[in-house]
């Protein structure tokens, strides 16, 4: 049973984290593009803003790896 649940849990963690990041980045990207059209000087802020939600995916990746390693898959 562990053989099934461990990879499934890891996949779920990574998948949900990736979807959450994608959703956040889509919102920030759209708003950032609108802001850039009016104020090109905010480009740095926009790039950083877009990179911020990636932390969620990265932490999801780390947790997924932990599940795989600790779960013995």
């Amino acid at each position: 049973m562990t053989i099934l649940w461990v990879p499934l849990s890891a996949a779920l963690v990574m998948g949900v984290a990736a979807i959450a990041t994608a959703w956040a980045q889509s919102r920030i990207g759209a708003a950032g593009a609108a802001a850039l059209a009016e104020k090109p000087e905010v480009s740095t802020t926009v790039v950083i803003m877009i990179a911020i939600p990636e932390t969620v995916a990265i932490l999801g990746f780390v947790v997924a790896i932990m599940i795989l390693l600790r779960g013995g898959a």
Partner: protein
Amino acid sequence: MILKMSRVRMIGPRDRLDETLSVLQDFGRVQLDRMPLAGGLQPVARNASGDRLRRALTRLREDADVAITLLHVPVTAVTAHPATRGEVARWARDARRLRRKAERLETRRKELDDERAVLGRYEDFLDAFSVLLAQLADAQHLRVYGVTVPAAERARVDKLADALRAELGVEVIVTTRTLPSNDVAVLIAVPAEARERMERAFGAARIAEVPLPAGYVEESLTQAAPRMLARLHDIPRLLDAVAHERADAATRAGDDLQLMRAAAADMLGAADATELSSVTAHAFAIEGWLPSGDVHALRERVSRSLGTGVVIEELAHEEWHGADAPVVLSNPRLFRPFEMVTSLLPLPAYGSMDPTPFVAVGFPMLFGIILGDVGYGAVLGGIALLLLWRAGPTSIWRRIAGIALPCATFSVIFGFLFGELFGTLGRQWGMRPILFDREHAIIPAIVAAVGIGVAHTALGLVLGMVSSRHEPRIAISRAVQLGMMILIILALLSAVHVLPSNLFGPFAITVLVGFPVLLFLEGIVAPIEFFSTLSSVLSYVRIMALGTASVLLASVANEMSGLFGSVIVGVLFGLLFHLVNFAMGLFSPTIHALRLHYVEFFKHFYSPGGRPYEPFRHRDGSAAATSRGSS
């Protein structure tokens, strides 16, 4: 680093103000600033004549700038000289005339380009039927229609042709050709009296006639076609004539235009400088900023050019505020390209810390740890060397190469330590990881990434303590945060038995004692800030995540050669995958190394809000004349 600035005051006889400003403009290193009015000092009064001259100069600079841009005058260094009012009036007329000419040529070029684009859409159709259209030109009793339909809808044309033949008889001529775009072009000729029935048939078949462009709509297709083709062949010659006229104007008037623009910019700068000066009935006084190292040179220059009549006094630091001083960054040659990275943020405040040296070391190091591959690093290094070889001395590509080269060096170094050459390809030739294998040793990689985070954050907190040395409360709170962070790490190491486990209690208790101290120093935001610092440390785990993802992708690329039936196809796919991974390997570490610096590292010590350094000097008058302070 941020250069130390001095504020100087110059005093002299009023009738030598213009001469003094001219010397300062030649010297080019003093940023003039308005001085407090005291002791009978008054600002220099503006008059109507001066305002008229200023308006004329502004217009002259704008006209010359537009003409230079539209005539594509190559920018060269020019030395402007002060002009008389008569010269300014003559230049203004010349610049206006040249601007009008440049605008007329530009409008003509755009019109011809647009016309070529419109007629170009008919070119294939007209070429396909050129012979037939010429033959039908004399057949006055026939009316000719042109139609294009997508290849997939060819059946509709056949149906229309059958219907027309059935209704109008044998006089219907329907010819089809396949265009280079694969669309089907159809030419239909019917008796002129059948026009109404023809248009009804088009409507029934849901086919639209090709509309002729503006200027040809009153003519029939047979009349318009030869004219359109002739015009299409004529337009390149007309465009050449416009380009020739423009180049001729640029050659004849380019130097004059640049001289006018530079002189106007200089005179406007001098007028602005005059307004920043203060005068009494017999004397003038000017104040300004310059790097402290240049004060001696200024004294010598003024003494040599103006004699003892003009006195320079360096103001004591107590007489000015640091917030008013402009900021000049000065870094060693190797660090200077990284000013481009910090220039994406507002200038640091005067008296604070320039983060460029820390970015110059930290950015390539983090980049190298994330990419960590000898092969990719070598390719990046090759590209950087190529850029250094080909790019001009002031080109942005040279600065990019100056950043890429240290990044490549660190990538190669960490590639050796991780035993990676294009992923795991190096293992086939005996390459082995010295630190750890990033593909499998996930936990050591996480621990190493967090360790880097602790070190980088600790450095940020130490810099924060140094930069807020004049505000002891903030400096102490940074020190307490640093101490607590180290104690938490020590407690964790005790908990996992790396340190003696009996030390866990004392470490944990000391951390708990630190909280009230932080609360006392920083108020209610202290715990939030502390936990934000801890989360910053965890954010460095991205170094491991991106590095592992990179090595896994490289491994997939290497395994591709065996997945396809043909070795050649497999190798090609593998190379393509490596290319994609290399592109991602440049983009991802750049963004994340930047983010780790901007968000996690800078927040502990970076104080934005510096004034840019814009010295009073000769300018070329172009729009990009002002720049961020840098020496």
